[in-house]
């Protein structure tokens, strides 16, 4: 089963890393440059999981998660937060914002895949 994933990150490098990590044939990856763009992209797709960065221009990760969760059809869509900080309070904030889980950058491609399967099947 192919999982459809939306990855939102303002860093091109990071987007490419994610694309490469998920380039196993099991994933269909869409990308967006920031929260606002992410919401636009989201209008056209129904991803099985969303990966988002926190620190982004225009709309940051927390704002993005809020906005996604407000949408009825994405109330239960798994959202993984990409963060360089592993500080516990940051994880708590991500969770309070409605994130499903988190991945600490730099990430191991296998772990990313595992985490995606963990939340999205």
């Amino acid at each position, binding site marked *: 089963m192919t999982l459809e994933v939306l990855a939102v990150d303002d860093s091109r490098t990071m987007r490419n890393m994610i694309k490469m990590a998920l380039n196993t044939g099991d994933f269909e990856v869409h990308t967006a440059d920031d929260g606002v763009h992410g919401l636009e992209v989201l209008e056209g797709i129904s991803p099985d999981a969303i990966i988002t960065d926190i620190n982004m221009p225009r709309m940051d990760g927390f704002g993005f998660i809020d906005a996604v969760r407000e949408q009825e059809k994405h109330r239960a869509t798994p959202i993984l937060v990409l963060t360089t900080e592993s500080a516990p309070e940051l994880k*708590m904030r991500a*969770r309070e914002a409605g994130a*499903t889980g988190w991945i600490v950058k730099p990430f191991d491609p296998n772990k990313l895949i595992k985490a995606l399967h963990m939340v999205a099947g």
Partner: protein
Amino acid sequence: MSQDTDPMAEIRASFFIESEELLEALQDGLTSLEDGDEDGEVINVVFRAVHSIKGGAGAFGLEALVRFAHRYETALDEVRGGRMEVSDKALKLFFQAADHLSDLVRESRDEGELPTERSQELLAQLDELIGDDGEDAAEEEIDFQPAGLSLDLDLGLPGLPPLDLPVAEDAPTEAPGFNIHFKPQLELYETGNEPFQLLKALHELGDCEVEILCEDIPALDDLAPEKSYLAWNIKLTTAADAAEINSVFEFVEGLCTLEITPLNAAASAPPPLDLSLPGDLPPPPPTLPDDDDVPVMAAEPAPTETDPVPVAETSELKPEPKAEKQTKAAGGGKQPAAKSVVRVDLDRIERLVNLVGELVINQAMLSQSLEQAGLSPHSDAMNGLEEFQRLTRDIQDSVMMIRAQPVKSLFQRMSRIVREASSAIKKDVRLITEGENTEVDKTVIERLADPLTHMIRNAVDHGLEDTQTRLDAGKSAQGNVRLSASHKSGRVVIDVSDDGGGINRPRVLQIAIEKGLIPEDSNLTDTEIDNLLFLPGFSTAKEVSDLSGRGVGMDVVRTAIQALGGRITIQSEPGVGTTFSISLPLTLAVLDGMVVEVAGETLVVPLNLVIETLTLSDVDMDMIRPGVLSIRVRGAFVPVFDLGVALGYREPLEDNSGCVVLLIAHEDGQRFAIMIDDIRDQRQVVIKGLDENFYRSPGIAAATILGDGQIALILDPTDIVHQAGNAAPLLDPALVSGASS
């Protein structure tokens, strides 16, 4: 992503390109802050730039870069969080750190030697700035060790007991397996987690006996569809250890009641551990899909004793106020709207440029053969050709536009040069840049970096007076160096000016005489004296400072500018300042040329240098001395060089009448003339470099292919005059100093 290249290497390369952009944004942001921009978004942009570099660097294991970026970011975060004011001192340090960061990025990219000492020095200053005694840094260091590509699995939530304690210590080795009691709370569903996936993940670790506990399900009437009623008991037979089991529940930790007990220790089960969040559950939201298959039993709620007794656990889990500020609103007002861009490999553009070059040549050939066919200039074919020519020119301009880049990146490098140069010699200097968005051919920008660096250093070192002299002269203590770029009549003009003391002409003259560069009795105009600075081997610095006195003079700068088809001139006013102007062609690929004939050879003279053409009658020409000719043009004497002689095509002519003279303007207004036999055409020519295959011949800039397929050399008239001037030692240097040296 193409298959024949290593995708990782490609991403790595793209990381460095992106880093350059981020560094540019960083410089921009810091400059805005320096200008007193109060917009809160600016510091966010600055922070994000450093943050993103850190993130990418971590992915490639660039430890030194990560470490520096991290602590730089920490300092910036202090400002961002409003805990620190941006003082001048802080800003200066931030600029230095930004410079250093770009060093680190470049060294990392080129796998060069990293300036670790400088890192330490700056980090110490950054720590000092934010009043950090280093303890935190050491602690964070652990946190931010580039994780070497690992997923963080630590489970340390604040205020919650470590999850694995009850099991880890008495986990049996011989009877592997665990009993797991799992009861999700509502938040587990709300954050998009799904018990089914967790059970599946457990199943992958070993054999599971799963028992669903429906005791909590209320009577149908009381059933709130979104509430969490279910719980599971799982007996997992596995070789996996507790940590692995815990990792399955990492994301739901704190969102459920979870007990994990080793199988054989089940009898002496440790007190249940409740990881639920404290406080009341929020009212259930409308619908949640999961529980379709729940057997709905019309039974009383099961007795509660099967529930583990929750251990009261009340930890405040509010995030620290310092955590990221939400910036939901779309962008700060000052940011220019994002442009949509495509990245193209430079090779492809080069190819396109070459093709357009071929097109120009072909079109010239076509036009020539149509003419030879004797078509009337008013025929449809000729009209069509004219249109074709116009389109070709448009295409050419557009292609050149692709290669064009704003000079901004170049200017940013220069602002760094000013910072370093001024701090090295303890002058307070501010660089003002104008016209950063002026676009210039990429190659020109790259090759402009060295000469411009030298000129900026000169301006700081020699151009500006020291602080005391400035104050005595009634000027501000802070010296100004202005760097500006603009488009002027088809050329790019870059000015470097300072508000220093101007060129000390008596001293320049004296040095030139002392060094034997000019005769002692020379009587030079101000402009001519200024131009002495461009003579090889000229240096005014009384003491060689380690800054600009590296034995590289302005002559090298001029040579570099000329190699780009550019010209450089000086304007200076005592006590007010000096301006160096560089004028450059927009492109290096195509040239408007005048096709001329000398001694049967076809040559091309860059059209923009020719200000006037004259046909000679012998009356106009005077011989000042043997071998030195001059003509009188509107009352002024202008030296004349016979191109045929200068290039060695022929001996000097007995009779020059009937020859054509091209009046060439030098940048500073000096003029000279070159004599040719005839003018054949005026057209665009494609520049074909010769340097790669031939030695650089004096006076020849490049070559081109004409419409008839013939190859013609493109002249560098200034260089020709220079050579001719050397060849004629009797020539009065005063006459040619502006033109030839």
